[in-house]
């Protein structure tokens, strides 16, 4: 993808984040795309003749925050995953107050996998019997969103049940494109950001970076609540303070220095 093939179609003024209202600014673009789908007369310089050019929007490429703006499925809270939708298994941590996807991946395993019956290593005392969440076809998604309100200049209206059983904020303007409800992959999860954040998490926790590692006292309290890992739980000292035992997944200070060399 080099410079001659890139094309700046619209520039949206700041300074505040538009959130769902981005649709208002995308309207000229969608109008153009609709016109291009039905075909426009174009001159082919190599053959020196006119032809009908048709253009199709394949997909959008966006980071996870823009993912909340474009398709209209909010990427915050428990319902953040746009694939799992309401069949999520995330929960809020008792001490950390963060949404957590712990223990929600055994359902993707084959039904006879030993991890599903393991009651010690994952969430204590729980056996996973559910299958993976259903994958919705584009038509099924369309049936869900077709009655939702569209965004106009007057702003957004909160839809009933937002954050409880759905995360829809609007009917996205992309659904106005005639072929959009037959498009299997409409918006991409960005692999670059996923990998970077994944790596940051691993790196911070292994290198024990101060204030960034997700292995603080609250995390250890949550660990005692959800898991059976005695060796990692906070231990009371004689003077009333709690001490955090060193975990086997973090490097010691000397080992961290060795990594840097």
């Amino acid at each position, binding site marked *: 993808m080099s410079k001659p093939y*890139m094309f700046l179609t619209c520039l949206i003024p700041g300074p505040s984040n538009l959130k769902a209202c981005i649709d208002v600014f995308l309207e000229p673009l969608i109008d153009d795309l609709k016109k291009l789908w039905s075909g426009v007369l174009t001159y082919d310089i190599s053959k020196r003749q006119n032809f009908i050019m048709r253009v199709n929007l394949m*997909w959008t*490429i*966006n980071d*996870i925050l823009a993912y909340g703006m474009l398709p209209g499925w909010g990427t915050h809270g428990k319902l953040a*995953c746009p*694939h799992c939708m309401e069949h999520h298994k*995330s929960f809020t941590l008792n001490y*950390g107050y963060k*949404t*957590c*996807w*712990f*223990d*929600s*991946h*055994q359902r*993707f*395993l*084959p039904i006879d996998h030993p*991890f599903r019956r393991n009651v010690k*290593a994952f969430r204590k005392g729980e056996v996973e019997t559910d299958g993976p969440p259903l*994958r919705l076809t584009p038509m099924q998604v369309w049936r869900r969103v077709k009655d939702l309100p569209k965004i106009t200049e007057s702003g957004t209206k909160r839809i009933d049940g937002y954050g409880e059983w759905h995360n829809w904020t609007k009917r996205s303007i992309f659904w106005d494109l005639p072929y959009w409800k037959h498009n299997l*992959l409409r918006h*991409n*999860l*960005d*692999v*670059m*950001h*996923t*990998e*970077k*954040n*994944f*790596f*940051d*998490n691993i*790196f911070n*926790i*292994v*290198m024990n*970076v101060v204030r960034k590692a*997700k*292995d*603080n006292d*609250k*995390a250890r309290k*949550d*660990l005692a609540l959800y*898991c059976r890992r005695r060796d990692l739980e906070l231990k009371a000292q004689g003077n009333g303070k709690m001490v955090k035992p060193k975990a*086997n*997944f973090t*490097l010691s*200070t000397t*080992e961290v*220095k*060795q*990594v*840097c060399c």
Partner: protein
Amino acid sequence: MPDGYSSNLARCVDVEKGRIHGMKSHDCHVFMETFLPIAFSSLPIHVLNPLIEINHFFKDMYSTSLNRESLLRMEENIPIIICKHERIFPPAFFDSMEHLPIHLPYEALLGGQVQYRWMYPFERW
């Protein structure tokens, strides 16, 4: 390493304090792809292996030629890898970003190579 493969990672390293900071997205990518198994080799083997497996998962994901069989195999493997992480790390570690790799092979099955579907070309401007 070939010329132009990575930026100068040494600028991020503070040897005296034992810190690495200020890594850009592509530095993270290079670290994840090549250095992770070497850098973290002093971890116990049952912690290191799942980290290397996720490193291989992303490496396969970046391959310029993907075929259906390997993607289906990746789709089977990724829940096992993440479950192995769940056995090691505390619950607070698993934010939404740890969950999303589950869906990446399916998107690759539909959309093809990641090089046409990621944000590197746009983040440069």
